């Protein structure tokens, strides 16, 4: 039995089925526009939106670390980022691997992981998607 069958996911319809999780979002073929999370209708044409596999890799566009008392049972500290996805023109807000909190840089390539992390609004442990590093930053020189 997979872990996803016993622990609720933090938000419905944001992942393709495992075990190799990808982000799942929406795509409007008429407007050639992607959404994450999927929407009931396209915000441009108001037509229906298809499910779309958004892949699992991206590049950090910006990142910060929250060091104050965290919400939702998240670890202290925890990092969050905007990640530009590799396969589709979409920037997503994302949690980062707590074991690497504070170590991320703009330009770094990251990959999706899914694991129990923090609590949901019912105060239950839940699965959250987060990104973790798979390479050193591409442009660390610009950060110094």
């Amino acid at each position, binding site marked *: 039995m997979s872990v996803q069958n016993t622990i609720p996911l933090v*938000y419905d319809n944001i992942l393709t089925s495992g075990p190799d999780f990808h982000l799942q979002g929406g795509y409007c073929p008429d407007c050639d526009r992607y959404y994450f999370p999927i929407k009931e209708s396209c915000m441009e044409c108001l037509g229906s939106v298809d499910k779309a596999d958004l892949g699992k890799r991206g590049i950090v566009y*910006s990142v910060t670390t929250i060091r104050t008392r965290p919400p939702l049972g998240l670890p202290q500290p925890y990092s969050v980022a*905007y990640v530009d996805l590799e396969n589709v023109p979409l920037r997503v807000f994302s949690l980062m691997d707590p074991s690497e909190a504070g170590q991320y840089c703009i330009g770094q390539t990251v990959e999706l992981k899914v694991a129990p992390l923090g609590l949901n609004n019912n105060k239950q442990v839940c699965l959250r998607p987060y990104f973790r590093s798979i390479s050193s930053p591409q442009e660390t020189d610009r950060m110094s």
Partner: protein
Amino acid sequence: MVAIIGVGIIPFGQHLERSIVAMAMEATLAALKDANIPKGTIGACYFANAFGGMLFGDTTIGQNLTAAMGIRKIPVVNVENACTSGSSAYYLARHAILAGECEVALVVGSEKMCVPDFGLINSGATELDTLLGMVVPAGFALRAQRHMYEYGTTVEQMAAVTIKSRAHAALNPYAQFRKIETLEQVLNAPMIADPFTRSQCCPIADGAAALILASDNFAAKYNRAVTIKSSVLTSGFYDNQADITHWDTDYYTANLAYEKAGLGADDIDLVECHDAFTFSEILHYEALGLCPEGQGGQFVASGQASLGGKTPVNVSGGLLSRGHPIAATGIAQIVELVTQLRHEAGDRQVGNCRTALAQCMGGDKMGDAKSCTVTILSK
């Protein structure tokens, strides 16, 4: 055109024993006294409050205020628009007068936030971003980090916003934080969200502020009246992959307000802007055209945003030092502009202040603001 003929404000901070209505009434009485009109003159009331429903289960509080003051029968509109709740109420009141629905309108914002476990504000408990750990400081910290990366903006430049804010607030008896802070103190305060220390995040507060707006006709007999040159309210662009160092919503709203007023950034003698975090103020300098894009850090570090500088910004202390009782903030900004334009600001008076601008932003949706207001006033 529409004019402001009365302003009222109470000191921002903790008012643990006072209700939303009690604070609103004190600010309203001060504004009525300032305008020298009886309560019966008020033809409409626009009341702003953002958190009363969530924290206390109180809604339609505007009528609780007017009923308590024996102000009867008039239209009362309750406004919630995040941090622009107060400035949106003002926007609507001006329209009521422009439409000829009333001669005099009361605008009042009152907020009580100092309750146990208030925590960090988020953008809605069931939104995916919130569930993935988005809190308000994080949204601005992400913008700051990208700005540092693209333009070389430094933590010292951001700290300069707090240092300036405290120095200004020391001159404002209505501000919450009135002690001078040094660079070391700002940078060594506990880290909230990189690169913001606690000193770089605005405090929550209780407080209230009020305005009396009147038609040109009614205001003609007031030599302390201040004219509203323009007042705009917009909502977000909600673009994905937008450049977060160039906030389109902010630029668009500022330009619209300049266009409607027939004025430009060079005409502005004083700005009150939405400095919820140090870096937000830096972004607003750029969007308001006070300095070239990317140079907001240098603008503040070189003293150009200080009292006596090129364009003094947040001489009241702003959100960072005056405090940020959400729905009172947008109105408090206008109270400051009116006080300055009347040359009644005492120690913090901006010399030769003739035209002034207030900018406010609220909410978070898809990485964008949900609302933005800019108003330009002149004497």
